[in-house]
C-alpha cells in the first residue's frame, strides 16, 4: 500500500517535471526504478517520456524491459498492438515511422517473440495473417514452422467466407506474400501435388487480378466478375469516375491492393514451382513465348511416356500452356471488357497506348476491336465473278456450297482456318502486331491443350474450377478463334450465348457500354452469317447495328493503304480483318457487307432492279472504289434497256452517278428507259413542288401507291421528262449533303425493303 504511494509520488514528480526539465524527470525515474524495480508504472513512465521524445533507441530498450518483465500488462500489449499495426500499415507519417524504427531496435528474438505473441492475440484471420507475415519475412527460419499453416489458414478463410472472386484479400496475401516465402524456402519439403495446387491458386489470382474490372467488387456474382466491366470503352462519359477507389481489394489498404507486374510475379512463381517439381526444360529461359515453345517440344514425347513421368510431363504442359493461353487471350481480347485501370497497372503497353493515344484524338478509337470477314475486296469480286460468272443457278450453288463447307464439317473448317490472313489497319490499331501475336499464341496454346486427351482432361478441370465460362474476355477470344477456324455455325451459337450473357448484365452497365458490346456481337453475327452465305440474316443483323449508330457529321476517312493492298493482292475472300469497334469503322463495314450481299443478286442474269439499285446506292460509299462495279451496273442497265428504282433520287447524290444516269436517257446513252421517281403521278399533280417540304413527303417510305406500276410504265411523257430533269437538277444541288447521313437514312428507312429483297 505504502509502496504504491511511494511509486505514485515518484511518477507524479517526474510527470510534473518532464516539460520543464526532462533530464530531471528522467533522473527521478531512474532513482524510482532502483527503489522499486518491479513497479510497472515507473518503467512505463520512463518509456512514455522516451517515446514522446521519439528517442528510438532508449524507448526500444525500455519497451524490451517491459516486454520481458511485465508480459501480462495490458498497457504493454496495447503498445505492442500499436507498433505491430504500424509495421503492417503503409502509413508514412512520423509516428508510424518512429514506431517501426522502435521495433527495429529490438533484438531479433524479442521481435520474433513479440510478433508471435501478438499473433496469438489476434482473432481476425486477416490481421493474424498479416502479423505472421511480418514474422515470416523477418525470420525466414520461422517459415518452416508457420509457412504452410498460414497459407492453408488463408485458403480456408477464403473458402469459409464463400468469396466468389479469387481477387480477395486472403488470396492476395496467400499468393503475393506467403507463397513466395514458402516455395523459396529450400528447407521445406513440399509435395508436388501441393505445389501444383498452390501454383494454380496463384495463376487464378493473377489472371483474375489482371482481368478484373474496377467495378466488379462485391456487387457482382463471381460469374460476372471478370467479364462484366467495360470501362475504357470510351463511350463512358469522362465525368464518370475511373473508380480508383474501387480498385481496392476489400479488406486491404489501397497500397497493398496493388500488385505490380502481375504476369512477372506469376512467372517467378512458375519458375520456382517448376524447379521444385523437377519440370523439364531450360530453367534459364523466361517469357511466355519460350514457355510455350518448351512444352510444345515436351508434348512430342508425351505419348511414349508412362506412369509417374507421364503425369509429371502432363501437369507441366497443362499448367504452362494454360498460363500462356490465358495471358495471350487476355492480351488479345479488346480492352473494353477488361478493367482499363488494371490493364494500365499491369503494364500492358498495347492497351496503355490505345487508351492514352485515344484520349487526344477520338475517345472511340480506344474501343474494342472485332474480328470480321475482310470485305475490302468487295469491289473487286464483281469483276472476278463477272469474268467467271455464267448463270444464276450457278451462283446459287456457290452460296449453298459455301454454307456446307463452313458449317457441316468442323474438321474441314479447322483445316481451312489454318494460315488465314488477318488484315489490320495499322494506323487505327497501333498495337496490331502484338494483338495478332497474342492471338496466335493463344490459339497455339489452345491447340496444344487439346492435342492429347490427358491434357484436355486436366485443362478442363482447371477451366471448371476457375469458372472460365464466365470470363467474357475469354469467350471473346474463343469465339474469334472459332471464327478464325472457319466454324461459323459454332461461332454463331457462341455469340448468341454471349448476347444472352450481356443481356443479363445490361442492367449493371451504362447503356452506352452495353450498347457497344451488343453491337460488337451483332456485327460479328452478321459477319458469320455472311460467311455462311446467309445474306438475309447478315443484312438483318447489319441493319440492326446501323439502327443503333449515330451518323457522324464528318465523312469517314477512306483508307488508301487498305485499298492499295486490296488491289495489289486480289485474294479471293476468306481473309479476316481486325476492325476497331467504332462508329467510324462500323458503318463502312456495314455498307460493304450489304453491298457484298446484294451484288451477287444484282449481277445475276435474271433481272433484279431492286438489288441493282441498292448496289448503286451502296457504291457511293468509298467512291470511286466501286467505279468499275458501277460501270458494270450501267452496262447491265443498258443491256436491259430499262431500269426501275424509285428510291434513286432519295439516296443517290453522287454527281458522277447522276451524270451517268442522265446520259443513259440521251440518244447517245442508248435512250434507256429510267423510272427512278417514287410516284410520278404525284409529281404530275404537283408540277412545281418546292424543293424542300414537297420532296420530303415524297421521300417517305411506303408512299408507293397501288397504281404506281401503271403510272410508271406509261411515263415517257413530256411531263414526266420534265419531272426527271427537275429531279436531276435538284439532285445535283444535293451533292454536298453528307453521304453518310444519306446512306444511314437509306439503311433506316428502307430496312424492311432491303431485308425483304433478299431470299
Amino acid at each position, binding site marked *: 500500500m505504502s*509502496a504504491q504511494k*511511494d511509486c505514485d*509520488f515518484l511518477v507524479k514528480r517526474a510527470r510534473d517535471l518532464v516539460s520543464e526539465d526532462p533530464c*530531471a524527470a528522467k533522473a527521478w525515474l531512474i*532513482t524510482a526504478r*532502483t527503489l522499486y*524495480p*518491479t513497479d510497472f508504472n515507473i518503467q512505463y513512465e520512463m518509456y512514455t517520456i522516451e517515446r514522446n521524445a521519439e528517442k528510438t533507441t532508449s524507448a526500444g530498450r525500455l519497451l524490451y*524491459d517491459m516486454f520481458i*518483465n511485465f508480459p501480462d500488462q495490458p498497457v504493454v500489449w496495447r503498445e505492442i498492438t500499436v507498433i505491430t499495426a504500424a509495421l503492417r500499415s503503409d502509413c508514412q507519417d512520423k509516428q508510424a515511422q518512429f514506431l517501426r524504427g522502435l521495433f527495429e531496435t529490438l533484438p531479433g528474438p524479442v521481435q520474433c517473440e513479440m510478433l508471435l505473441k501478438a499473433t496469438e492475440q489476434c482473432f481476425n484471420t486477416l490481421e493474424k495473417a498479416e502479423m505472421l507475415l511480418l514474422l515470416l519475412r523477418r525470420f525466414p527460419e520461422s517459415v518452416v514452422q508457420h509457412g504452410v499453416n498460414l497459407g492453408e489458414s488463408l485458403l480456408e478463410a477464403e473458402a469459409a467466407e464463400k468469396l466468389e472472386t479469387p481477387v480477395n484479400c486472403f488470396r492476395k496475401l496467400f499468393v503475393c506474400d506467403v507463397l513466395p516465402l514458402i516455395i523459396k524456402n529450400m528447407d521445406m519439403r513440399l509435395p508436388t501435388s501441393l505445389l501444383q495446387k498452390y501454383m494454380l491458386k496463384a495463376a487464378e489470382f493473377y489472371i483474375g487480378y489482371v482481368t478484373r474490372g474496377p467495378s466488379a467488387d462485391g456487387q457482382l456474382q463471381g460469374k460476372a466478375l471478370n467479364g462484366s466491366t467495360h470501362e475504357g470503352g470510351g463511350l463512358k462519359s469522362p465525368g464518370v469516375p475511373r473508380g480508383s477507389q474501387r480498385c481496392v481489394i476489400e479488406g486491404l489498404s489501397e497500397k497493398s491492393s496493388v500488385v505490380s507486374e502481375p504476369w512477372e510475379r506469376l512467372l517467378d512463381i512458375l519458375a520456382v514451382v517448376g524447379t521444385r517439381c523437377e519440370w523439364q526444360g531450360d530453367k534459364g529461359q523466361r517469357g511466355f513465348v519460350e514457355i510455350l515453345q518448351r512444352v510444345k517440344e515436351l508434348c512430342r514425347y508425351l505419348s511414349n511416356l508412362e506412369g509417374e513421368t507421364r503425369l509429371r510431363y502432363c501437369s507441366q504442359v497443362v499448367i504452362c500452356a494454360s498460363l500462356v493461353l490465358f495471358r495471350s487471350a487476355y492480351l488479345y481480347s479488346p480492352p473494353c471488357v477488361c478493367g482499363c485501370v488494371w490493364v494500365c497497372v499491369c503494364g500492358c503497353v498495347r492497351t496503355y497506348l490505345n487508351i492514352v493515344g485515344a484520349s487526344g484524338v477520338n475517345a472511340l478509337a480506344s474501343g474494342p476491336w472485332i474480328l470480321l470477314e475482310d470485305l475490302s475486296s468487295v469491289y473487286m469480286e464483281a469483276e472476278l465473278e463477272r469474268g467467271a460468272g455464267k448463270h444464276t443457278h450457278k451462283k446459287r450453288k456457290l452460296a449453298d456450297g459455301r454454307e456446307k463447307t463452313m458449317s457441316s464439317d468442323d474438321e474441314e473448317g479447322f483445316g481451312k482456318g489454318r494460315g488465314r490472313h488477318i488484315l489490320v489497319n495499322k494506323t487505327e490499331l497501333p498495337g496490331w502486331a502484338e494483338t495478332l501475336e497474342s492471338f496466335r499464341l493463344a490459339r497455339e496454346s489452345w491447340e496444344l491443350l487439346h492435342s492429347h486427351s490427358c491434357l484436355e482432361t486436366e485443362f478442363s478441370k482447371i477451366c471448371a474450377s476457375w469458372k472460365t465460362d464466365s470470363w467474357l474476355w475469354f469467350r471473346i477470344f474463343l469465339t474469334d478463334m472459332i471464327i478464325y477456324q472457319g466454324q461459323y455455325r459454332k461461332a454463331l451459337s457462341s455469340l448468341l450465348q454471349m448476347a444472352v450473357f450481356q443481356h443479363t448484365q445490361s442492367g449493371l452497365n451504362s447503356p452506352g457500354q452495353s450498347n457497344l458490346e451488343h453491337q460488337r456481337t451483332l456485327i460479328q453475327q452478321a459477319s458469320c452469317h455472311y460467311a455462311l452465305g446467309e445474306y438475309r440474316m447478315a443484312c438483318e443483323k447489319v441493319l440492326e447495328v446501323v439502327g443503333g449508330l449515330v451518323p457522324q457529321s464528318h465523312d469517314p476517312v477512306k483508307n488508301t493503304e487498305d485499298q492499295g493492298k486490296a488491289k495489289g493482292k486480289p485474294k479471293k475472300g476468306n481473309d479476316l480483318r481486325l476492325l476497331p469497334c467504332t462508329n467510324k469503322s462500323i458503318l463502312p463495314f456495314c455498307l460493304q457487307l450489304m453491298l457484298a450481299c446484294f451484288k451477287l443478286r444484282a449481277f445475276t442474269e435474271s433481272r433484279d432492279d431492286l438489288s441493282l439499285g441498292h448496289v448503286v446506292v451502296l457504291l457511293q460509299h468509298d467512291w470511286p472504289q466501286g467505279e468499275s462495279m458501277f460501270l458494270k451496273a450501267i452496262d447491265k442497265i443498258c443491256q436491259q434497256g430499262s431500269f426501275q428504282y424509285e428510291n434513286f433520287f432519295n439516296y443517290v447524290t453522287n454527281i458522277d452517278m447522276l451524270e451517268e444516269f442522265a446520259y443513259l436517257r440521251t440518244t447517245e446513252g442508248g435512250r434507256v428507259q429510267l423510272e427512278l421517281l417514287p410516284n410520278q403521278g404525284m409529281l404530275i399533280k404537283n408540277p412545281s413542288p418546292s424543293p424542300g417540304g414537297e420532296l420530303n413527303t415524297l421521300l417517305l417510305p411506303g408512299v408507293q401507291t397501288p397504281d404506281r406500276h401503271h403510272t410508271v410504265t406509261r411515263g415517257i411523257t413530256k411531263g414526266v421528262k420534265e419531272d426527271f430533269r427537275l429531279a436531276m437538277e435538284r439532285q445535283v444541288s444535293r451533292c454536298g449533303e453528307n453521304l453518310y447521313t444519306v446512306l444511314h437514312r437509306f439503311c433506316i428507312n428502307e430496312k424492311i425493303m432491303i431485308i425483304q429483297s433478299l431470299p
Partner: protein
Amino acid sequence: MMGDMRQSLLRRDALSAAKEVLYHLDIYLSGQVQNSPSPSVDTPTLELVEEFILHRRMSALQELQLLEIMCSCFQEQSRDAVRQLIFSALFTLQGNQADESRMALLGKLVSMAIAVGRVPILECAATWLQRSHTVYCVRLASGLVDDYCSLLPGSMVPTLNNISSSSPQFCCQFITAVTTLYDLSTEELSPPVELLQMVVSWIQDDPRLVLVTLLNTPASSSQPMGSLDLTPLAGLVCWCVKSPLAYRRDRKQGLSNGMPDTKPEAGPLFSALHLSVLQVLLLLPGVLREKGLLGRLALMQPEQLTSLISDLSRLLEELNPLQGDTQTHTQLTLERLAQALQVAMAAGALLCSREDLRALCSHLPHNNLLQLVLSGPVQQSAFYPHVNTPPLGYSPRPLGPHLSAHSPHPTSRSPHPSSYPSYPSQPFIAGMAFPFRPSH
C-alpha cells in the same frame, strides 16, 4: 660511456643537445624493452634528461622547436612500451628541483598535443595522470583549462570535442582531475561554463567515457597513494549536488556586478550532467561484476560523502534563507543528493547502509525524496516473482527506521535549529509506521 656522452652534449647548443638526449632515450629504452624483463630508466639517464632537457635555458623559439621534436618523437615511436618509458623518463616526478621545469614542459607538451591532436602523447599523459599525485594532476589540468578556457576562449569546444573519441583515456583522467580541482567551494573553484559544457557533451556522447580508466585498470592493481580517483564519479556527483547552491551564489554576485550574462546557463547543463551520472552509475554493476569487484570497490568513498555533506551544510548556511528561491534550490540540491545516493547504492558504487546514510544526513533539511531514500523502499510482496532484472546491486535494506536506534529524529537537527527557520519541521508522531515517509 655516459661521461663521454655528457662531454659531447655539453659542446652542443641546447636544442641539438636535447634532441640528442631524446635520440639516446629512444635507443637505450628500445634496448631495455627488448632485453630486460622489467625495463626501467637508470639514474644517469634521468640525470641527462634533467641536465640537457629540463635545466638548459632555451629561447621561446627553441622551446617550441623542442616541443615539436618531442611531438614527432612520440608520434613516430611505434612501440607503446618504449613510448611510455620515454615519457616516464622525461616526466615522472622525481621529488627534486627539476620537477617544476618538468611540470612546465609537460603542460606545454600536452597542450600542444591537444591542439594538434597527437593521440599517443595524450595516451601517455593519461597514464601519467593515473600514476602521479593528485596535486600535480590538478596542476596539469588547471594549466590546460587556462590554456583553452582563458587564453583562447571559444577554441575549447571544437578542439577538445575531437579528443573525447580519439583519446577517451585522457579525457576520463582529465575529467577526474578537473572535478578534483573545482570543488565549487568558491567562485574561483567553480568550473568555467565552457569546461562544463564540454564535459557534459563528452559524457552525453559516450557515458562509458567516465568508466574508461576503471575498465582499463586490471582488478588486481593497486592505486598509488594520493593519486586521482579511478573514476570522476564522486567529483561529478559533488558538482551536480552542489551546483544549485553554488551557482545561485555566483549569479547573485554576477548580477550585482551588473555584468550581462551571455554564457550558456549552467543550470540545464548540470541537470543533464546529473542524469548522465545516474545513467553511468547504472552501467556500473555490469562493469564491476565483470571485474569481480561488485561489492568490493567503493567508487564513492565514505570520506567523500562526509565532506560533500559538510560542504552542503556550509553552503546552506551561507544562503540567505529569506531569498525567494532559496527553498527551490535547497530542495533541488537535496533531491539530487538523494538520487545520487540511491542510485550509487543500488549500483554498488556506494558501499554503506541506509543507516549510515541516515546518520550522515541527519543535519540536512527535510526533503521528501531524501527521506524516502534514507528509509529505503517499502518491502513489497512478491508481485512479479518472475522479474529477471534487477540489474542493480542492492545493499541490504536496514530494519524499519522507527525500530533503529540511529533513526533520524527531528530533534537530532537541534544543533542548527535556527539555521532553517523557514523550514517546516516534521513532527515525529510516535506509533506511525513510517514517520518520515514523504507526505504525498
